[in-house]
């Protein structure tokens, strides 16, 4: 297309291009019976208690579907705390979503697993804290969690769901990776996420107590690869997904496949975010109570803010890898450098990369501080109001 009269006036630049929000994550509640010290919820979650109603959620699902969203995750907190979960599952399924329940398994029962199946739930992901009962319960801050999780994982499979098991790994459990994998095989998981802890939210507070050493990480990855080969040779279709922590990389991750490109999170109180950590940023994000998802996704300041490349600073701006990693993670840049426009310090080109090197060095030392558990009392410390 050419000619000056065919475009919009040059004083109103087009917002940078973006895709559809294929992934809608519904954080139904911040309430949770567990207290995992690596929870990605905001540290000041206790400040946000005005949860969306059933009808408000269903409106969000309808608007998301119109925008092309197809995967819907029910998350939290612990989504099972919501008494209307079956109603929400049914509404989402009727709209054509593939519905994922992301749960700790605590609060689940045989009856609920069946009830959700009838409502149209497609998949259940159960998170574990460790393969060992004592470590699991220590991390979860609950004495009964492990046995309940085992029981529910078996129930999920018995009732015919695809099942993903999620283990967040860190220095306290990563050396048991072989036992974690064996447990997942025994429980007949379809997918296993061996997700090395990412340092956001509560995990950032507890980083020194959680971060594995490079040697621990390399060993875990090697063992995972050995299991992959062994399981594939035995014809077992189980998929092991090993998520490496970016702290041991020299280039940042292409966070969320780019800001506001495929992912949309809605928090319990209706704030729409381009990723589940973004609430911490000093940016005003729109609320679904005040705006449609169409406006939020396509026009809002918050979602357009880090789209494209215009916002970048050096060394990102002139970097030939910027289209690959989009400068890394905005939240990490903000948490570590105080400016979300900066290059993610994971990048070895970042002038702040020494912060990552420092964290790696700290990981070599024994953990000294006690873990800070994610609960309402501890959250109050971080609340503003």
């Amino acid at each position, binding site marked *: 297309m050419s000619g000056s009269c065919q475009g919009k006036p040059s004083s109103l630049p087009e917002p940078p291009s973006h895709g*559809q929000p*294929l*992934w809608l994550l519904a954080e139904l509640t911040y309430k949770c019976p567990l207290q995992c010290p690596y929870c990605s919820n905001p540290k000041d979650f206790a400040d946000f208690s005005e949860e969306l109603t059933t009808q408000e959620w269903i409106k969000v699902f309808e608007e998301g579907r119109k*925008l*092309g969203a*197809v*995967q819907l*995750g029910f998350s939290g907190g612990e989504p099972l705390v919501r008494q209307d979960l079956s109603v929400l599952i049914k509404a989402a399924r009727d709209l*054509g979503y*593939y519905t*994922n329940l992301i749960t700790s398994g605590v609060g689940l029962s045989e009856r609920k697993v069946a009830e959700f199946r009838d409502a149209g739930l*497609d*998949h259940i*992901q159960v998170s574990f804290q460790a393969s060992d009962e004592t470590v699991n319960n220590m991390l979860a801050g609950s004495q009964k969690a492990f046995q309940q999780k085992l029981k529910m994982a078996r129930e999920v499979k018995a009732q*015919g769901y*695809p099942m*993903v098991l999620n283990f967040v790994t860190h220095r306290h459990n990563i050396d048991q990776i072989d036992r974690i994998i064996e447990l997942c095989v025994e429980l007949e998981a*379809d*997918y296993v996420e061996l997700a090395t802890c990412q340092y956001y939210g509560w995990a950032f507070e507890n980083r020194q107590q959680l971060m594995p050493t490079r040697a621990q990480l390399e060993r875990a990855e090697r063992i995972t690869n050995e299991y992959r080969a062994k399981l594939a040779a035995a014809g077992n*279709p189980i998929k092991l997904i090993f998520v490496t922590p970016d702290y041991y990389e020299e280039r940042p991750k292409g966070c969320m496949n780019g800001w506001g490109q495929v992912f949309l999170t809605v928090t319990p109180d209706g704030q729409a975010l381009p990723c589940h950590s973004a609430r911490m940023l000093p940016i005003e994000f729109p609320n679904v109570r005040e705006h449609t998802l169409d406006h939020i996704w396509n026009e809002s300041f918050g979602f357009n803010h880090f789209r494209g490349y215009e916002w970048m600073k050096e060394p990102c701006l002139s970097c030939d890898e910027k289209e690959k990693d989009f400068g890394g993670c905005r939240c990490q840049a903000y948490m570590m450098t105080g400016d979300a426009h900066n290059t993610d310090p994971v990048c070895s080109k970042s002038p702040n990369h020494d912060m990552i090197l420092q964290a790696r060095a700290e990981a070599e030392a024994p953990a000294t501080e006690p873990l800070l558990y994610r609960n309402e009392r501890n959250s109050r410390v971080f609340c503003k109001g």
Partner: protein
Amino acid sequence: MTSLEMIPVLEKMFRFQWEEAQQSYVLLYPEGMVKLNGPAGEILSLVDGKRNLTQIIDLLMEKYPQAEGLNDDVLAFIDDAIKQHWIRG
């Protein structure tokens, strides 16, 4: 070699549906989606756990009488789909 008598069934891990926003058939699975190309979508839309491959090929030939080498294309796709654990025989 896959037999024409085979009755393919979608693995229960997957849900198959038309996605208006993608203008294509897709396979949905936990936290993921495979966007299918035209022929793959057409073939899978006929996989219902009852029809065998001969019947599926016949239906495709009715719909696309100009298409050449349908037999081989369908068999190659089915082989691949089994390897990917999308369907079983």
